[in-house]
């Protein structure tokens, strides 16, 4: 009986995490595109990209998590020249063509506490977008 309840509870906790992940992935996709639009090879472009990444987490049409109830606050934007090393504040802004937006939230857990003394588990999603001469595209 305990085992049955534990398993059922696990599926609820994990199901909830998958929903949260889907919400975060939608957000990071939009945020990465929004940031990539601003990339123009200048420091000002990088600053606008950071603002652009966060703009869909605020305002009247903000994207949210936990079935659309919680605001997304932990957003990390990093840039890259070649997609191998990522820097939040790159020194050579002129060559940065890739932008990566990652968002993570502490997903509350109810039943997983049976196995681990934790009250939340980190759920994260990330997207990479690039700007080329012709278009702005999502890569991952």
């Amino acid at each position, binding site marked *: 009986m305990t085992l049955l309840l534990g398993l059922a509870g696990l599926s609820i906790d994990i199901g909830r995490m998958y929903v949260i992940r889907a919400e975060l992935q939608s957000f990071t996709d*939009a945020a990465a595109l929004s940031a990539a639009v601003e990339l123009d090879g200048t420091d000002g472009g990088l600053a606008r990209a950071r603002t652009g990444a966060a703009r869909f987490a605020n305002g009247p049409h903000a994207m949210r998590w936990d079935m659309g109830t919680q605001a997304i606050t932990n957003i990390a934007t990093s840039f890259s020249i070649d997609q191998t090393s990522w820097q939040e504040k790159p020194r050579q802004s002129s060559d940065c063509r890739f932008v990566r937006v990652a968002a993570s939230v502490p997903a509350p857990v109810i039943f997983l506490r049976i196995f681990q003394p934790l009250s939340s588990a980190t759920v994260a999603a990330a997207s990479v977008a690039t700007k080329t001469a012709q278009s702005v595209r999502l890569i991952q």
Partner: protein
Amino acid sequence: MRRPGSQPLAHARGSVCARGTAGSALIEFAGSLILLAVMFAGIFEIGYSFYTYGTLVTAVRAGARYAALQPRGAGGDPAVAPAIADAVRNLVVYGDPAPTDRTKPVVPGLTTDHVELITSQDASTVSLHGFEVDALFMKVKLDGRPTVTFPVTAGGPQ
């Protein structure tokens, strides 16, 4: 002589005892069955709500992305053409901008009236309004969620 005399007594005792055990087992079974049924129904409800919400997030995301790629009206008008707005709603509800089969929405009960599309010059927002996820015993009312906004990225398809 002892055996035949004691047999009926032993038999009677045994049958009373067996009948009593059978009754309490039945009551226990019925009690636990009700408890189990309620628990499984609850688990099903929550699981189904999560599953449905996940499907809706994906559908709304697809609609917002599609809308962001469509041309806006001429002269700074942020609205898209009515036909495009209909295509966005169809994409959210049926998974296809021009559906041939309008009987199977991605989630039962979802109609194009539930889908709200807001477009501006630089973004498209799709959200659901007034839709209720019909789980077994409860209804989860979704007003304004899920909401997904996608930026307009100038320069052709992505």
